[in-house]
């Protein structure tokens, strides 16, 4: 069904389509609209989920964990400090192999208080064992949230999935949304290690070094296996519902001499920059990273000049995306730090990054005394 929705509403609509058994969430700007909308669906009888209005994000994730281990399907949403506050429990959800799905509305971290888009929140969760996808449109927020359940619950994966959408620039942006009936695209959840009082077991107790080590390896093996599951899921989604997604979204990359890379909404904005550059005779292309974990194969960047826009920073090291990409391609890039704290970055700006690229350097957009 066609409608107009914000990124937040699209996530809530996806949840309504999935009908999780339990939703536990705590409000935080700019995610609030997601929990408000879900609460409204539940109160109005349109969504037969149990909604637990927890007193914190730490408890939101703990409640999802407690529900999930019974074999229930669970969802939560957060942002920024909320995500950081639940960090202990995000690790727990992944280590406990629970297919919790979470929407994270990307926002900067204080101080000072800043409520606008930045990816540093989710990137601080990079090493927890969660799968992470970053979306760029309202439709994609909806589609990715639906697919997240199928991927997380697949027996070759059994890891939680985080769907990331940029605060305000996507969470509050209105765009057309085509909703679907998922049908058996989302099969019933069967958690192999669900609690069974007829067959009592201990979960997460004291674990020796060897066993702990093997459990970590098992998580790594599953996140590697998730590559295949993500590909299959996105392919099946395209077959049934006609919208195609991949690990990256590539635009004009085939004959490109310079490729600009980013995540989230900037990754869409840069397609316009590519058009501008092409008109000037610059053979530019753009590559939007969708899945950060598992990290995609970026061999397409080999032998090209690469400009990476990071809406994040790891102090003392560099842009997280740039660091990850260089580690894989072993080639120098022009690293641009831009958009922190919701800084406006237009397609003209992006085109300028490409025009003025200095491979091997790092550039902080809007800062006068850098490079």
């Amino acid at each position, binding site marked *: 069904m066609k409608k107009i929705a914000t990124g937040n509403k699209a996530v809530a609509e996806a949840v309504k389509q999935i009908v999780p058994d339990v939703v*536990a969430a705590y409000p935080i700007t700019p995610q609030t609209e997601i929990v408000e909308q879900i609460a409204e669906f539940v109160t109005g009888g349109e969504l037969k989920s149990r909604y637990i209005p*927890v007193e*914190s994000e730490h408890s939101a994730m*703990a409640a999802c964990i407690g529900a999930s281990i*019974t074999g229930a399907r669970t969802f939560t949403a957060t942002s920024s400090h909320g995500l950081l506050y639940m960090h*202990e429990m995000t690790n727990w959800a992944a280590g406990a192999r629970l297919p919790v799905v979470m929407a994270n509305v990307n926002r900067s971290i204080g101080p000072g208080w800043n409520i606008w888009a930045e990816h540093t929140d989710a990137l601080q969760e990079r090493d927890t064992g969660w799968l992470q996808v970053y979306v760029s449109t309202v439709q994609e927020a909806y589609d990715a949230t639906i697919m997240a359940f199928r991927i997380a619950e697949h027996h070759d994966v059994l890891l939680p999935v985080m769907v990331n959408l940029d605060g305000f620039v996507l969470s509050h942006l209105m765009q057309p949304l085509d909703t679907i009936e998922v049908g058996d695209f989302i099969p019933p959840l069967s958690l192999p290690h669900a609690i069974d009082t007829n067959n009592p077991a*201990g979960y*997460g107790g004291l674990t020796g070094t060897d066993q702990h080590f093997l459990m970590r390896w098992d998580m790594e093996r599953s996140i590697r296996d998730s590559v295949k599951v993500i590909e299959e899921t996105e392919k099946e989604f395209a077959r049934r519902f006609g919208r195609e997604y991949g690990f990256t979204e590539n635009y004009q990359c085939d004959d490109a001499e310079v490729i600009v890379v980013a995540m989230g909404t900037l990754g869409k904005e840069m397609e316009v920059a590519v058009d501008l550059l092409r008109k000037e005779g610059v053979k530019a292309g753009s590559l939007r990273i969708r899945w950060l974990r598992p990290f995609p194969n970026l061999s397409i960047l080999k032998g090209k000049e690469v400009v990476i826009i990071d809406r994040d920073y790891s102090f003392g090291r560099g842009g997280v995306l740039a660091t990850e990409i260089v580690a894989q391609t072993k080639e120098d890039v022009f690293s641009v730090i831009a958009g922190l704290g919701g800084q406006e970055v237009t397609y003209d700006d992006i085109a300028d990054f490409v025009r003025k690229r200095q491979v091997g350097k790092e550039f902080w957009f809007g800062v006068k005394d850098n490079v």
Partner: protein
Amino acid sequence: MDTIAEIPKEEYVLKCSSACAGCSDSLALRYVLKAAGPDTVLVIPACCTSVIQGIYPNTAFNVPVYNIAFGAAAACASGMSNAFRAAGKKTNVIVYAGDGGTLDIGIQAMSGAFERGTDFLYICYDNEAYGNTGMQRSGATPLGAKTTTTPTGKTDFKKDIDGIIAAHNPPYMATAAAAYPQDLFKKVQKALSFRGPSFIHVLAPCPPGWRYSTEKTVEMGKLAVKSGIWVLYEREYGKLTMGAQSKVAMKKPIPLEDYLSPQGRFKGIDPKNVEILKQRIQKNFAKLSAEEAAS
């Protein structure tokens, strides 16, 4: 149920747990699980019981045990209870947490779960310090008690967690002691008969932490009740009933020194602090008996 012989023989705390000798946490848990029966899930935050249950892949408990992070037990139980009820299951969800995980790091999650009317039983077994990590002070450590972080005795009072829970108006709350297993058994069964949140605060003397010899663990709990420093009562929809043992103690308490002197943690306690503790025992009795008379 009038005699201990009527308590079910089924054991849910199996042999070869890793509990210390004379551990009243595991003694209390034994009766908690006998009362709850097999359709029960325990949610356990970091505490002595995390250790007592044994090492993966073995477990000494014969019900499912979900271990969760220190501050998250009540929230985890909240999700679990909602999921079970959504699936039409009546499975008991019992948090079994120490005083640190209840009075200190877990208090926010617990308050939230009680405020939301979560259908679960929260049991705090109270050994009045962080036992798992080697006896550091907690919000439950009493005035004057030595711990590894209060080497000359605690200078603050024990937090009134029962007062805090009472302010949430749960359908049922009670105090108990591992030394009175029949009383504990009955209170657990009663707590589980209510829909919504219930709370039982169990005094759990700890031989290595309190520094008394292991065979005195039951005696220590009884001395606590007889001296009045621990009062047995239950509150059902706000109506308070004091236990018979505590009514005796209110009228004719044994000297508090009889309770304090066998314990190494109170060795050398300032006599002024003993007087303060005695005064507080009287005040607490006066408050509880007034509430009982009024309700």
